[in-house]
């Protein structure tokens, strides 16, 4: 502390000499220039993103316009836009698009919720108990090797066309993604930390609360990103297999009518939703893992 004060106020003769040779930038100016540099890099990232979109969508439009590829099979951006407008203004054969979207979103979110909760609990239990993990590991491997689309058919046959089988399929997909990460996260827990709280008299429950769960959290949160994608896939696939409502149903109907534009329009709708959810997960990640050292020193050093 005292050393810092000294540096701030008194300068040695060498320092003064150097200061005269090289004008030292004041602190505020350093900060401002760092902020400018950051804004500039953000702008360039967005310019790059826009360029990619223009290139892909523009190329697609151009190719179909010039009839190099047939827009009947591959769709066309402007027609996709028209379908989007139709979907939102005139609705679908099964009711308004908002209804359909709400059904799919509900299925995906509930599947995500139950799947990840079950995955975290099972992962932590099996990860911290060697006996349980030895007993269950072959079964988990067997379950994991079943193709999910088959499971989807089974669920629809068993539970009908309502939203429950969709939640179930989304949940199963999410479960495995989260489970393996939670399991690994628990296995990687620093045994020193466990010993540390055990010496302080922690019960097994307290060990889990103070060490195992927070330390596996890094792994669990990382898996939530992919898991959310799986939840959407699960809900959509199950709807394509058989449903009375939902985006997946529109997709399978449009497929039957050889209408790729509506299929792409549905994909665009789901993409917007997924981006939003992804953003929320990133926010969660930031707040839960704020203790983590930044990957690169960009954040704190200028």
């Amino acid at each position: 502390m005292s050393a810092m004060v000294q540096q701030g106020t008194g300068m040695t003769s060498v320092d003064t000499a150097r200061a005269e040779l090289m004008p030292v930038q004041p602190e505020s100016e350093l900060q401002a220039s760092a902020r400018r540099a950051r804004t500039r890099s953000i702008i360039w990232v967005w310019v790059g993103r826009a360029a990619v979109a223009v290139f892909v969508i523009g190329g697609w439009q151009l190719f179909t316009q010039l009839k190099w590829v047939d827009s009947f099979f591959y769709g066309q951006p402007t027609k996709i836009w028209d379908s989007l407008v139709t979907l939102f203004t005139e609705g679908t054969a099964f009711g308004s698009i908002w209804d359909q979207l709400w059904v799919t979103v509900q299925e995906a979110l509930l599947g995500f919720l139950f799947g990840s909760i079950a995955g975290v609990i099972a992962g932590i239990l099996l990860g911290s108990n060697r006996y349980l993990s030895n007993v269950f590991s072959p079964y988990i491997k067997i379950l994991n090797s079943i193709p999910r689309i088959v499971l989807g058919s089974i669920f629809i046959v068993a539970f009908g066309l309502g939203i429950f089988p969709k939640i179930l399929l989304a949940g199963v997909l999410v479960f495995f993604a989260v489970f393996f990460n939670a399991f690994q996260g628990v296995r990687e827990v620093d045994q020193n930390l466990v010993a540390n709280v055990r010496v302080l008299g922690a019960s097994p429950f307290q060990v889990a609360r103070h060490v195992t769960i927070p330390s596996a959290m890094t792994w669990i949160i990382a898996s939530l990103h992919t898991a959310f994608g799986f939840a959407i896939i699960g809900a959509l696939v199950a709807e394509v297999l058989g449903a009375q409502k939902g985006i997946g149903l529109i997709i399978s109907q449009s497929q039957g009518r050889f209408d790729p534009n509506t299929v792409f329009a549905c994909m665009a709708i789901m993409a917007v939703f997924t981006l939003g959810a992804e953003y929320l997960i990133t926010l969660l990640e930031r707040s839960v893992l704020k203790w983590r050292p930044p990957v690169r020193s960009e954040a704190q050093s200028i």
Partner: protein
Amino acid sequence: MTERSSTWVTTPPSARPWPLGVADDAARIDIIGLTKRFLTPKGEPFTAIQDVTLAVEPGQFCAIVGPTGCGKSTTLAQVSGLDKPSSGSVQVGGHIVDGITNGVSYMFQADALFPWKSVLQNVLVGPVLLGTPKKQAESLAKDWLRRVGLSGFEDRYPHQLSGGMRKRVALAAALINNPRILLMDEPFGALDVQTNAIMQTELLGLREELRPSVLFITHDLDEAVALSDRVVIMTSGPGTVKDIFDIDLPRPRGDVPTLRHEQRFIELQTQIWESLRDEVPRAYERTAGVAA
């Protein structure tokens, strides 16, 4: 286990189970014929320590020195109750250790701070696990951070601290529960000479206040002589106690760097070095032989 629940859980944490600065008989450590064998990955038994017998009087500061791999950390783990002896026993305050020993704080050889907890929360863990109310634990933790010179760093995370500061946090976390017994496994081993000296002086002062019994592992003979009442030399192959030296330097000892130049200090240090000298290359050859 039953013993710990009767003393720790039923007494309110505010009423300390033992008074500050007084070492009572409950702080006595008796290691009797302690042997620990491990199974190597090949399934063969490996004797890490054999027949270690050692007593630490209440309030005594006992240093253990010995060549690498001679079983110092293993001995400490048995005292803490984290590990079970293969034969022999450890008694703390006359009770055989079975399960986690009550009233023990352990500073590990490796960094054992919680990276996801702030400095304050790291120090807080001990009292919180004992059921101290949050407010009270917090003010206690702040007080301890002040004592180790880390006021103003409460909200930092461990990765934002220097190595020496991390050790000071670990020291505060170890002492906050007013342990009867303090186990320290090369706590200052990775620090530079100056910081090391500061930490040693700090530890001496804090120990005078709390008077726990201390088992202190170190590689540094100067450190061992400067801090302790008794230095235990261990040898390897398998680990046993070779020699015990009583350090009769008067207390309080004050500043560690000045102490180093005193006549008696140098005498003791030389004696201990003589005893240890043949062991170091022997232990090294032994581990080299295993690797080959």
